[in-house]
């Protein structure tokens, strides 16, 4: 599994022929299998639908309800896995599909143009201790002897930590990293700094491969949280841009307001 992540198609090579080895960013424009919003909503609806049927059955506790509960199983299964029938039961294709899935962690890609020279941006990013100042779900990063220790939060809010090492480091151009064995979250990624056209600063591209656990829960997590994580990375990148261009991250946290309900049903935003 580890190796699959490290040598995945999106990992920039560490060799000298760096430029040609880097994948074209356009390849990330092809929608990954989990990306479609409809698919995510559909999956979530099936999982919740299945769960709702179960909940109903648990409350009613009669024969009719048992039938309903049984009907809920395939719904929930389809929602979580994307298949009606367990892959293992489908003889043909089963092996090929599993192989693809095993090497397909969920990928996140984001890019933004920052009105600053690449060297400055690289220098700030390379000091990994700086990353929590614009990455919302990161609490701390410390680097010692070539190994960095990361503490952050998962999309579900629980604390995660992992160790990583820099596998490619070209000043002003690219930093790529990979988590080490034994990490709570198996991930790798890179950030690239490319001169923007028309003297507009630097295009910053971030790519991450996150390997979710190879079980039902992990796949459901990948399916359901992919869009959210991508939005989060995009927002992190936007905060990075603001910090670099203006010296601060825009915020309204701590400003006054009148009485706010916890959740306003009429205006959820």
């Amino acid at each position, binding site marked *: 599994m580890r190796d699959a992540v490290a040598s995945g198609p999106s990992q920039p090579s560490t060799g000298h022929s760096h430029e040609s080895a880097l994948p074209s960013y356009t390849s990330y424009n092809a929608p990954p299998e989990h990306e479609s919003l409809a698919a995510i909503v559909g999956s979530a609806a099936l999982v919740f639908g299945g769960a709702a049927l179960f909940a109903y059955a648990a409350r009613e506790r009669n024969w009719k309800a048992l039938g309903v509960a049984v009907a809920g199983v395939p719904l929930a299964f389809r929602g979580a896995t994307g298949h009606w029938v367990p892959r293992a039961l489908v003889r043909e294709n089963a092996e090929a599909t599993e192989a693809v899935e095993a090497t397909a962690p969920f990928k996140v890609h984001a890019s933004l143009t920052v009105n600053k020279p690449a060297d400055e941006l690289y220098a700030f990013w390379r000091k990994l201790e700086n990353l929590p100042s614009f990455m919302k779900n990161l609490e701390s990063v410390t680097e010692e002897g070539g190994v960095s220790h990361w503490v952050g939060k998962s999309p579900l809010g629980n604390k995660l930590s992992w160790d990583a090492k820099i596998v490619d480091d070209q000043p002003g151009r690219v930093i790529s990293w990979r988590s080490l064995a034994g990490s709570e979250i198996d991930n790798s990624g890179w950030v690239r700094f490319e001169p923007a056209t028309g003297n507009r600063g630097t295009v910053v591209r971030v790519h991450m491969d996150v390997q979710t656990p190879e079980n039902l829960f992990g796949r459901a997590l990948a399916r359901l949280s992919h869009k959210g994580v991508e939005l989060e990375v995009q927002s992190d990148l936007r905060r990075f841009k603001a910090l670099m261009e203006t010296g601060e991250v825009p915020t*309204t946290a701590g400003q006054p307001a009148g009485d706010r309900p916890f959740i306003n049903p009429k*205006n959820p935003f």
Partner: protein
Amino acid sequence: MRALCWNGTNDVRVETVPDPKILNQRDAIVRITSTAICGSDLHLLDGYIPTMQKGDILGHEFMGEVVELGSGVKNLAVGDRVVVPFTISCGHCFYCERQLFSLCDNSNPNAWMAEKAYGYSPAGLFGYSHMTGGYAGGQAEYARVPFADVGPLKIPEGLDDDQVLFLSDIFPTGYMAAENCNIKPGDTVAVWGCGPVGQFAIQSAWMLGAERVIAIDRFPERLRLARTWGRAETLDYEETGSIEALREMTGGQGPDSCIDAVGMEAHGTTFDAYYDKAKQALKMETDRPHALREALQACRKGGTVSIPGVYGGLLDKVNFGASFQKGLTLKMGQTHVQRYMRPLLEKVVSGEIDPSRVISHRLKLDEAADGYKMFRDKEDHCIKIVLKPGDFGAKRGYTHGHSHEHGPSYRMGGNGGEQVS
């Protein structure tokens, strides 16, 4: 402090809320001496701007005295008297460097919301929904001003609040609308809407060399102000159809430039206006673009339609074909306020224009909720309301027509009332 809070559609109240604090190094805290209600605030009152939250402090036209500064603000000092632009702009991004301040890349912490709606996010704005940053606004005793080293304009001694307050929004907005018209000698400019922005668009059209200005509205006091102060020819669209009248007035050619200073809540007497009203009531449409439709139709071939009126979303039954077939130029957008504040201040200092002429009412901040209602319903010939927080009104020598004890306070006289009557 006291502040006007949005609590839902048609429900704004002055409440006691915590005082603002410095949150970033480039922030300033301003004690507000004057603040105004804008026509675009009525879109919030009427509930047509999405992403509002109960408790949001409104207001984006304000000025006052700097009382506290973040460590990063070097060009202001405590005690400075400043006008604050309604657009929040960082001064360093691609857009700010090109003076496109209302398109600032960095001032909207909720950029993702605007990106969902518009593809890319415009600048953060004071008191104007969470999609444009969710910043607490200036209809309050104090406000926090982010990027205070870029926005606020210091005001020289000897000028009244009322003369310079509108540099925060409506004067630059009217001016940019006229500038967007690309006025050439001999040009006729038609202005839909004789509210405050329309009035400033009329003034600015003259400044930029228009030969004729035609103003369109239905409220007598607004048309009167457009005639007396604005020296414009006026059209009451309830009496005559604007498009036919404009055709006749321009000798069958049409105005060279048309300004839509009305925006998303246009009122009209033709079929399309009622169609919009019904559709908006059913929540099938956010915007009622009646004035825009007329402007597109009335404009001469190869002319320019300039749109300072606010639009929020999807517009229905807009004759895009007319724009295309007549080769129109469309120009629009939130005002790049910082670009215009200084040159327009000079026009005020030199006496070329007295922006306080649009003020019809001065109220205390605590009377703001009544003010919103009066402004929305155009009661008491209301054109523009300025609010005076705390006891600044008394301190600075403004005379309120009535005190709290004597009946409804919004029925007061004041200079503006005399001007329009």
